């Protein structure tokens, strides 16, 4: 190998070394974990800081007043709807029912509460019969229109009556509120997530 060939090889080696160094310099910036990746994140939208979930006391489908304080120590999945709802509410209830099934014995530490936006048709007894078809452990809550509106306002939930006939409906907030064992409103799951996402988030809440 003559001098020029050696020189060529040296230049090549130097370029490769420089390239390798550049990659090494670039890598830490490019692969730095995001702040959210360092701690487990929820599938639902999370609040920071989490405040106390607004409590309420409404007649329940189980024959007792429904309050959040009564479920302290459990993760509460709170949703609003009405039993004559054609699509959204049955889907939500089926999803939450499936979530409890997937959780197995862990579901004992989870309470689903369904607050009606249609007290005219959703009596406590009617709620009990309707909810039992999904999961008999789901508790329904009803009350006077004023009391229910006050609860909705605390959560930013809207419910607008649509139609005047016997088949009237409601356009309403379809999200599910996730309340931890200490009664903090930690997150809100928009409509459309599957049971696996709820299982994921419930486990995070149960872990602390």
């Amino acid at each position, binding site marked *: 190998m*003559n001098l*020029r*060939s050696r*020189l*060529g*090889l040296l*230049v*090549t080696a130097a*370029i*490769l070394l420089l*390239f390798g160094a550049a990659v090494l310099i670039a890598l830490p*910036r*490019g*692969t*730095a974990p*995001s*702040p*959210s990746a360092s701690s487990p*994140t*929820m*599938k639902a*939208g*999370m*609040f*920071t*800081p989490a*405040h106390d979930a607004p409590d309420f006391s409404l007649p329940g489908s189980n024959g007792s007043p429904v309050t959040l304080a009564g479920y302290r120590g459990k993760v509460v999945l709170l949703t609003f709807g009405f039993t004559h709802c054609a699509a959204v509410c049955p889907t939500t209830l089926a999803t939450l029912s499936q979530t409890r099934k997937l959780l197995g014995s862990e579901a004992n530490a989870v309470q689903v509460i369904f607050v009606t936006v249609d007290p005219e048709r959703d009596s406590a007894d009617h709620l009990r019969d309707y909810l039992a078809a999904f999961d008999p452990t789901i508790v329904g809550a009803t009350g006077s229109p004023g009391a229910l509106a006050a609860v909705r306002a*605390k*959560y*930013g939930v*809207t419910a607008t009556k649509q139609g005047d006939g016997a088949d009237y409906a409601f356009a309403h*907030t*379809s*999200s599910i*509120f996730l309340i931890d064992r200490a009664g903090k409103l930690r997150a*809100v*799951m*928009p*409509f459309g997530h599957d049971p696996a996402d709820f299982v994921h988030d419930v486990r995070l809440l149960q872990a602390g």
Partner: protein
Amino acid sequence: MSIIARKRPMRPVAIALGLIVLGAIGWAALAPIRVVSHDAVYEIPHGTYAARTSGKKVDIFPQTIRLTLGVKDVLVLRNADSVPHIFGPTLIMPGQSFRLPFEMASTYSFECTAHPNGGLNVIVDPGPAPGPERLLWRLRRMTGAS
């Protein structure tokens, strides 16, 4: 007199440079995208509600927010106002942040009291696919075009 042209030993250098360029292009086109933060942060400033109730037009953030899966796919709303604001599924209290991740490319329409017309659209685009799309995305990012 004859002149013998000696071949210059540039071939190894050219090959090395070629390999480096090809490697860089291949990496840029195929390597998974990693970013420091997925958060797209928007703040509802203090005084928004007061300004709006006094009849002032307040444009806080765009009517449509565009996110990209795997790149910027977490919407963070901070409420620095003195009153609660409704954003889509929930009420955000003063001083509180709401961090909503997206895992599906779609268009989402939310109610939002921080907007003059009370609504906010979030368009979530799919992440740049491996290949030319990802390569172009990296080039645009490098040149500051996106």
